[in-house]
């Protein structure tokens, strides 16, 4: 019997989740189409005032991305929880944190990455200049994984609860405010990165990710899982 390496395990789970997403394409498309529709409603509602549209574009795209990512959060663990796969994953003789990291990465590839790719096309509706579009893509590339990360904590805590989908949004949205402020703020006004700002964002992301994965690895572990659930209930 050969034990799988951590990287092997990571790629196995990512590949599994991507195959599952490809076989359930409707779920992926729902998120993307929701994003496209929400962003497109603004130019229609505000009217053809280019200056105003240009100013509000980053904020609109970010808020829409945030809401769209909420749509898919509930699915991150729930299918595996319902059919017993999550139970089996807890019995994997490997670090649970790696499994959770793989699931988060796969979730981002399925629900975050399409938004990043679609964003510049939607930015054109707001007459965003090319430079601003690049900044928007970069900001979303940094920001959307954080949304998946924070969302994963909410998704794990609301597993198995009735109305978990709405609850996860209520839990996670306030926690995403810093990401929104950073992301939309940078993609807006001057459309340039400050040299000093980038390390700050990367550091924030690294610490946030680190704490998130660590907590998630231990969060769903048997004994702790029940305790966390009790805290949430009371």
């Amino acid at each position, binding site marked *: *019997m*050969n*034990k*799988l390496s951590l990287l*092997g*395990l990571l790629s*196995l*789970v990512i590949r*599994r989740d991507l*195959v*599952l997403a490809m*076989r*359930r394409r409707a779920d992926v498309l729902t998120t993307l189409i929701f994003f496209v529709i929400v962003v497109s409603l603004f130019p229609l509602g505000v009217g053809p005032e280019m200056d105003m549209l240009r100013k509000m574009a980053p904020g609109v795209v970010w808020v829409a991305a945030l809401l769209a990512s909420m749509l898919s959060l509930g699915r991150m663990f729930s299918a595996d929880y*319902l*059919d*017993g*796969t999550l*139970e*089996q*994953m*807890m*019995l*994997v*003789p*490997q*670090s649970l944190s790696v499994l959770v990291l793989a699931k988060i990465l796969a979730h981002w590839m399925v629900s975050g990455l399409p938004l990043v790719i679609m964003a510049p096309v939607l930015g054109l509706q707001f007459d965003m200049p090319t430079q601003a579009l690049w900044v928007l893509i970069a900001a979303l590339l940094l920001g959307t994984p954080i949304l998946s990360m924070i969302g994963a904590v909410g998704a794990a805590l609301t597993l198995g609860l009735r109305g978990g989908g709405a609850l996860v949004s209520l839990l996670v949205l306030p926690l995403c405010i810093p990401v929104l402020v950073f992301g939309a703020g940078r993609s807006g006004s001057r459309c340039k990165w400050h040299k000093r700002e980038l390390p700050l964002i990367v550091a924030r992301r690294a610490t946030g990710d680190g704490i998130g994965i660590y907590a998630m690895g231990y969060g769903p572990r*048997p*004994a702790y899982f*029940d305790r966390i659930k009790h805290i949430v209930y009371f």
Partner: protein
Amino acid sequence: MLQVQGANGSGKTILLRTLCGFMMPATGEIRWCGQSIHELGDAFYAEMVYLGHLNAIKDELNALENLRISAGLAGCKVDDKQVIAALRRLGLRGRETLPVKVLSQGQRRRVALARLLLSNAPLWILDEPLTALDVGAVGLMQELIGEHLLNNGMVIYTTHQPLEVVGVATRWLALS
């Protein structure tokens, strides 16, 4: 071989789940080879396979993919030949590449049971393994458990159906 018996709601599943480490026992501790399973952690999980009420198979994937992934997660590297052999042993010849969602309940259970054949773990913890299985499959299951025990394996299971393995003494645990 230990068979756990008891009426509905007597705590059979909870006992098995506690043995797997999903829950902490209120008092005492669970040991594997003299060491607490919570201290052993991964070393214990590498030596056991658990089959619960839920089959832990994905409807969207076919039987082959499901087993390849579950064996991978359990840390065993298996090739397609082994997986197909395991599926055939469980009477799923010709169903290997069908999506699991088109299979019947009993056939899905068989796919889940095929996991046991792909694992080298000495300890099997089975919660109602015979649910939804037909007479033939129950006989097959007895055969599989018998082979596992001959290879120095251990089985702890709950069932409401009598399961007799020839030449093996069964220990009973009645919960009330």
